[in-house]
């Protein structure tokens, strides 16, 4: 590695050029210079010998490649140095190139080798958007030490990940590594940007999470003109009048627009930040993704600090010095007068992008690795590439836990224009909130406008809550899986109780009644249905005010119903004239009003109206039919008239149906109440759920895993005890070890001892059993004698006790006897087994 500090070199070169320039200077030039000096204040020159960047405290904790350079790397660094020097010489007024900064261990490394293309195990990170967002979330932003100077240290992506912080260059290296790993044609860009971008100051930007895709493509359905399409009727209106009117209207609109624009301009003026004295000088790094790979249609930038995609024509980016990926380094040779907008990103065009390493892809005149100028001349003919050494960085790895936690310590706060965004890791907060967006009305962030909260893994399935403080409306959305299939709930924050204004949406395909939406106001309730077998799609109920009751409350205290309106879709199995479209139960006026479906060739539907018979509610008598109860309009005289019986039956059906529908309405009201009760309860408890796939948090799964492990361990232990080495004690006794070969005599001795020991133990065991047997029988005998002696004057209890003892003792004796016999049978077999085993033992192989 050369000892020359690159910055030192640069400053020397600069000085040289200044001196030569001075020699040619005439007086006029001097004057001009003076004048210029008055206009532009000379800036502080960078220090001649910048302090050596701080090393990390424990370089030995890092792998070797971090702490030293391989030969190849040295070679490349020399080459880089050469390139830099030459570049500086040819373009003295350009800023130094960012090529070989120090790494965290204080070693110079070429920037291309700092990129370590990696694909992570998270499928989410395969997409650039997620990837960029992850990097932006995962790291904590640190400003550059000098806003106009390139940093001297560039961390490896592994280090950046470990400490979870970095400047824009560190961000870019990490992101580029991941993007290249995922197959994108990504580059790191070193250049200049505005103050807001460099400082990650987003307080003037509208929060991207709030910008919804409003671009709804309104496909204008062009009416197809058939051969026989009829001509439209003649327009009898005056065209002149119409044009005059439209002119006047246009004028008004224009004026309004003008005023609006002016107002906006005024607002923008107010909000405009103070001018930036360092405009155009602030150094920044970001990532560029070229079109071509991974179906990227157009080249774009990614602002690494925020994770947003930016157009290459964005005016926040003021210029590009150089770009690089893990293979090569290109210097921009195009003018950046109007920012990055005019740049061409064809890196193969050497007139626009000066490459550093000749690459196989774009074989242009080669610049072989050289130490001196003389060699360069010779080697022009030699077709030899300097290929880059592999990256010195270790493989990038992120644990699942860190990936889930994302932000440093699991939370992050970002400020946007009149907006605060807080991100939390799942399971961090008590209510499992993962995102909170607080919008304000003013820039000082005092007046709340709206709060958006997002949740995950909640037992009550809520996933989002939007509280609008201006209208007082709250919107909650839920995932599938709630008991009443609630999907969305919109209500007034101040009036959360039942019978107030609210809109509930449901997962209608899960509900038996096909309810899609229920809208409520204090006096009305509308329900919308879908896909019902009875074709009902709409039901509206109009309530009356509750009548004040005096005295004790009886059971139900519902609001009285004034009117119920039901609407049905067309049932094509029936004739249009017999298929009800709208059915109004006018309870207040004691009427039924029916409108049928309109036949497609007719202009008006048939209608029918029934009055309730006066004694309809009297269960004791049947009501009488008379023609005055019924009134109808038939759209055509071809339709068949209904007979009186049918009408009578229809009316009685309606009367029954009214009761049914009423009870349905009551049920709906009850349902609303129960949902609201559930909600209030859930909000106080805020239970969390854990996915069965989340082995880390699922207690059951954990327990199960532990159990399995425990079982395995136990199994192991048992095996170990089972396979106890029968020779070990004797080997130890003799001072022999397993590894040493055992002589024949020793082996024979060993065998002898082992067998005799076993024999002894078997005999001991038999003796032990025998002894116990004898003891037990003696005891028994004694007891018997005692019993016979005292049998006469014995109490009943004592006798009982004695009998119990006898049966117990007999049992024990019997068992011992059995064991003894069994032992007698087994002992010789055991002995034989041992003998065989000893014969087969490899350690005693000398025996034969």
């Amino acid at each position: 590695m050369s000892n020359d500090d690159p910055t030192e070199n640069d400053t020397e070169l600069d000085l040289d050029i200044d001196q030569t320039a001075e020699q040619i200077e005439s007086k006029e030039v001097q004057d001009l210079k003076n004048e210029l000096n008055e206009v532009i204040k000379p800036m502080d020159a960078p220090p001649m010998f910048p302090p050596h960047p701080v090393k990390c405290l424990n370089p030995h904790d890092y792998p070797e490649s971090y702490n030293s350079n391989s030969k190849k790397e040295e070679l490349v660094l020399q080459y880089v140095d050469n390139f830099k020097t030459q570049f500086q010489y040819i373009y003295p007024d350009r800023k130094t190139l960012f090529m070989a900064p120090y790494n965290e261990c204080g070693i110079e490394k070429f920037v291309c080798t700092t990129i370590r293309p990696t694909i992570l195990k998270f499928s989410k990170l395969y997409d650039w958007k997620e990837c960029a967002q992850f990097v932006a979330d995962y790291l904590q932003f640190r400003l550059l030490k000098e806003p106009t100077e390139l940093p001297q240290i560039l961390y490896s992506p592994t280090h950046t990940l470990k400490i979870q912080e970095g400047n824009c260059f560190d961000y870019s290296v990490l992101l580029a590594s991941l993007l290249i790993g995922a197959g994108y044609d990504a580059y790191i860009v070193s250049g200049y940007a505005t103050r807001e971008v460099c400082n990650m100051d987003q307080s003037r930007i509208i929060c991207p999470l709030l910008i919804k895709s409003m671009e709804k493509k309104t496909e204008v359905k062009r009416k197809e003109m058939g051969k026989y399409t009829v001509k439209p009727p003649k327009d009898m209106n005056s065209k002149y009048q119409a044009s005059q009117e439209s002119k006047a209207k246009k004028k008004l609109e224009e004026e309004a627009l003008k005023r609006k624009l002016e107002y906006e301009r005024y607002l923008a003026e107010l909000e405009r930040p103070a001018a930036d004295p360092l405009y155009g000088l602030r150094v920044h790094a970001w990532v560029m993704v070229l079109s071509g790979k991974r179906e990227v249609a157009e080249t774009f930038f990614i602002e690494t600090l925020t994770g947003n995609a930016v157009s290459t024509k964005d005016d926040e980016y003021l210029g590009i010095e150089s770009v690089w990926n893990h293979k090569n380094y290109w210097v921009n040779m195009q003018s950046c007068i109007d920012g990055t907008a005019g740049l061409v990103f064809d890196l193969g065009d050497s007139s626009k992008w000066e490459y550093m390493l000749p690459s196989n892809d774009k074989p242009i005149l080669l610049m072989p690795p050289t130490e001196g100028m003389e060699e360069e001349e010779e080697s022009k003919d030699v077709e030899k590439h300097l290929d880059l050494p592999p990256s010195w960085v270790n493989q990038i790895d992120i644990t699942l836990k860190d990936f889930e936690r994302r932000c440093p310590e699991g939370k992050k706060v970002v400020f946007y224009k009149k907006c605060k965004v807080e991100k939390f890791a799942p399971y961090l907060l008590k209510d499992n909130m993962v995102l909170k967006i607080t919008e304000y009305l003013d820039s000082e962030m005092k007046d709340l406008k709206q709060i958006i909260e997002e949740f995950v893994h909640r037992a009550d399935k809520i996933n989002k809550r939007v509280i609008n403080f201006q209208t007082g409306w709250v919107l909650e959305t839920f995932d599938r899986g709630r008991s009443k299939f609630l999907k969305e709930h919109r209500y007034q924050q101040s009036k959360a109780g039942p019978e107030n204004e609210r809109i509930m949406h449901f997962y209608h395909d899960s509900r038996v009644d096909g309810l899609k939406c229920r809208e409520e106001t204090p006096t009305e309730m509308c329900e919308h249905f879908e896909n019902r077998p009875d074709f009902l799609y709409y039901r509206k109920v109009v309530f009356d005010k509750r009548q004040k009751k005096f005295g004790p409350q009886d059971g139900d205290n519902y609001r009285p119903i004034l009117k119920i309106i039901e609407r049905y879709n067309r049932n094509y199995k029936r004739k249009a004239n017999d298929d009800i479209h709208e059915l109004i139960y006018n309870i207040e006026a004691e009427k039924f009003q029916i409108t049928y479906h309109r036949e497609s060739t007719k202009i008006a539907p048939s209608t029918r109206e029934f009055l309730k018979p006066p004694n309809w509610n009297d269960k004791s008598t049947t009501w009488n039919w008379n023609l005055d109860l019924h009134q109808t309009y038939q759209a055509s005289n071809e339709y068949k008239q209904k007979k009186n019986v049918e009408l009578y039956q229809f009316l009685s059906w309606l009367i029954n149906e009214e009761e049914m529908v009423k009870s349905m309405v009551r049920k709906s009201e009850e349902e609303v109440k129960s949902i609201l009760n559930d909600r209030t309860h859930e909000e106080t408890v805020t239970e969390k759920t854990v996915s069965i796939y989340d082995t880390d948090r699922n207690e059951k799964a954990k327990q199960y895993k532990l159990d399995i492990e425990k079982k395995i361990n136990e199994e192991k232990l048992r095996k170990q005890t089972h396979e106890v080495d029968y020779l070990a004690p004797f080997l130890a006794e003799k001072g022999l070890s397993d590894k040493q070969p055992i002589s024949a005599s020793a082996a024979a001795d060993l065998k002898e001892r082992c067998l005799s020991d076993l024999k002894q133990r078997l005999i001991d065991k038999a003796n032990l059993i025998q002894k116990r047997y004898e003891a037990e029988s003696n005891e028994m005998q004694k007891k018997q004698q005692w019993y016979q002696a005292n049998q006469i004057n014995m109490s009943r209890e004592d006798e009982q006790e004695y009998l119990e003892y006898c049966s117990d003792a007999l049992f024990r004796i019997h068992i011992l006897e059995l064991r003894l016999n069994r032992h007698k049978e087994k002992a010789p077999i055991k002995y034989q087994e041992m003998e065989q085993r000893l014969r087969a033992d490899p350690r005693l192989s000398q025996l034969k």
Partner: protein
Amino acid sequence: MSRLYDTVEPSVIDDKMLKTCIEEQGPKDEAGNIAKKDGILYEEVLSLRLDFQNILRVENLWQFEKLIKLQLDNNVIEKIEGLENLKNLEWLDLSFNNIEKIEGLENLTKLKDLSLFNNQISKLENMNTLENLEVFSIGNNQINDYDFALYLRQFKELKTLCLKGNPICEKPEFSPYVLAHLTQIIYLDYRLVDQNMRAEGLKRFEIDIGQIISNEEADEKIRQENQTLEKETHLNKEAYVEGLNSDELFLSLFNEDSEGQKLNLIPGADDLLADYHDKFVSVCKEMYEYGKAQKDLRENEVGEFWKCLNEAKGVNTEEASAAINVFIEYKKNITEELNNITDQVVQEAKLNEYNDEVNKLWDKLMSLEVQVVDQLEEIIREFERNLSDMVNNFVEQIQGFFGQLRDLENIQFEKLQESCLSTLERVIKGEVSDDFPDDLRDLFIDKDTVVNALQTSHDLHTLKIDSREDDMISKIKNWSNTMIEQIHDEEEYKRNRKRVIEINRLIDYFRDEIYEPADLQD
């Protein structure tokens, strides 16, 4: 009921019996009273029960057109008859009668449930048209052989079958046999089918069933082929080119032409004939292709016309309907207002306003109607013009083709004449070979006879060609004329009448409605 047969006089289905039955089975209580007042219409009755009536002959039921359910069980019926008119019948109960033969059910194609329980039937027959049969009860009859199972295979919808009490049920393999042969059945003899038994049966009768199935498949294939063939001929007929894609027309030339057939036997004529045949058929085929293409064009034109016509009508109807809906809203408001107003003068004013609105609505609806009439008239005229152009074009082309055919015939005639004359010469000279047919020798007596025969044959051919041409042209002209006429009649005249009547009816209704409550209040 056979035991009563001798003792009690059978009764006749007469008006009285029907009336009593309907009244008994009809609505009860208040509804019954109303129904009685309304009077009974036999064609309105949906279900009828005539059980335990000691009926011998089924008759006088022809009026019950809408009847869905008919119960004639527990009578003494001996013959199924008099049910031809009950086309909507889905449920027929003839159990406990004395029927010996299944018949007279051909028209009851909607029949789903048929019960012939406890009769004297020994054979299943005459049921092929009952495609929708789902439940069939034939228990307690005289069925004695396995043919019934093969017969029942054709009822794809059949799910429930009752056979209990037939002599055949005594056979040991009865259940597996039936289950294996009738795989569509779910219930047999009041019981859910035992799948194990069915599997066993399928195994045992595997070969038989395989044979049956392959036979059925072959039949089905032939049926389908015939169907496609029929369809194609139908399509060709619609294009007026049936038989033109083969040599059918050519062969028909010689069908009744005995002279021509004979003349074709002279030496050298077969070459001429082959040449003629090829040319003739190629023109025919050309005509066939042309006709098909023209038919597609015509169809497109007609389809386009109807699409636009219906669209225009739809738009107009929607507009009118929207206007009416607006009015209905207005009406609702004004009725409410009227109900609240007690002042006579104000009420009067409101009523006048309402009347004005009704008139306005009438104006609007009528002007819409006039507008659509104009629009339709225009496109119908255009369509008529285009269609007649097309037809004329077609006729011209066809005439051209037939001209070609006639030319071919003329050439053939001349050539044949030539060779005939030379043959005649040779015959006269006695140069012809011995195998010269005797029939021909009779013709080749002298020149006149030969020429006459030739001329007759030629005339006959020309006549055939001409008649085919006339037929084709008259058919297409007929088609276009009928269609245009129909369009004028239906779409211009009748539609307009209907709409105007509807508008006036509606307007009258609106007028009357508002006055009614007002009158009541007075």
